[in-house]
């Protein structure tokens, strides 16, 4: 099975729109540079759902503007991306990695993840802070 990421992380794109990025277990997606295998997969799924949100928004804009061809192309691209999502699900099925989308209106607003060893209430990635006490 290939381990190549399906999609480029959209946060690296100049026209990235944060409003289209679904939350991941209630938080922003993990840092781009993460080396954790599971968090990299979280980014993969977040990226593919971002793309689906983007294409749904494009189709909606085209429809409202009366641009039938633009709408058709956006919906075609949406279907293609949803197939990529299916491939991603299949790629990680044997490992039990699940991304369950929450749809609100026509937008995927959040993804709920599960994988081996993940505790249900775990934060996706740990937060570290330090304080200095003067004694």
């Amino acid at each position, binding site marked *: 099975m290939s381990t190549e990421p399906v999609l480029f992380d959209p946060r690296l794109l100049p026209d990235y729109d944060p409003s289209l990025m679904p939350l991941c277990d209630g938080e922003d997606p993990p840092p781009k540079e993460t080396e954790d*295998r599971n968090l990299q997969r979280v980014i993969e799924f977040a990226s593919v759902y971002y793309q689906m949100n983007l294409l749904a928004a494009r189709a909606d804009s085209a429809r409202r503007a009366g641009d039938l061809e633009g709408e058709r192309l956006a919906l075609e691209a949406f279907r293609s991306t949803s197939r990529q999502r299916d491939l991603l699900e*299949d790629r990680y099925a*044997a*490992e*039990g990695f699940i991304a369950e989308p929450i749809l609100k209106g026509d937008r995927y607003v959040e993804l709920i993840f599960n994988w*081996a*060893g*993940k505790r*249900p209430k775990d934060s996706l990635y740990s937060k570290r802070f330090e304080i200095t006490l003067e004694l």
Partner: protein
Amino acid sequence: MEKLLLHCRLSPGDVLMLTAAVRALHEQHPGRFVTDVRTPCPALWKHNPFLARISDDDPEARLVQCHYPLIHQCNQLPYHFIHGYIRHLSAELNIRLEPTAFHGDIHLGPEEKGNPVPLTQQLERGKPYWIICAGGKYDFTVKWWHRRRWQEVVNHFEDRVNFVQVGESGHYHPPLTGVIDLRGRTTTRELIQLVYHSAGVVCPVTFLMHLAAAVPRPNGLKSLRPCVVVAGGREPVHWEAYPGHQFLHTIGALPCCAQGGCWKSRTVPLGDGSPHDQPARLCERPTPAGLPECMSLIRPSHVIQAIELFTNSLSSTSPQIYTQTIHQS
């Protein structure tokens, strides 16, 4: 009377098998033992008539750690899982003990039998439903079937069968569409109640399979509860299969399970630090799609056919298929 405190720290399916041993103990040796248990699943013992309260510090109580070492011979000897704890208890107590029924021992209270199924408001009242479990724990991923295959089964019965999907939170239970989703939303008692009122069960080799046999049928029904098990080649059939279950397996059909169940843990390593990732515990024949070959050989059409044996209400003269071996085409 001898006081016994039976300890078992294993999974719910294992504890359910222990209920059969306690039943056998009291039915074959009435009045000789007072029994209490310490297990991770107290809900399985609710309403059990064979238990009596024994405190942990009771000096008269004998503590028995319950095991089933018989499993190490299950590929060679003609025993079912139900014999496991019974044989062990028989040896520990130096008594003769045999199974008294071919299922675990679950009891329901009147409120559980009489009330409608919990959490299933979406169900049409009075319309039969099947319970579906499309995954399992992360320790034995070789038991999993592919989510799209489960979905194909559900889709096939779209107009005829209501499916209620169950599964424990934190385990692998991919969401299915066209089902009533109760994943992570049932307590053990609610699951038992759900099984009690169900028309059938379809699942891998898992706790739910044991429940399908152990939970009585409503209204005094004597017929066996329909259950279709997608089993593959991990466990020997005679060790796991219950009467009336359609047990879809590949034992004897592949080199890796030619002489019995392979008892492997995982299809691919999960990288979670678990000993189940060790090479010796990994499937020898994973397919490119990430399924063990034994599970891949079981097609949605096989499962559909097995369910239809029940849903089509075949006449009583039709042969009952006890197990079905899937062969390579």
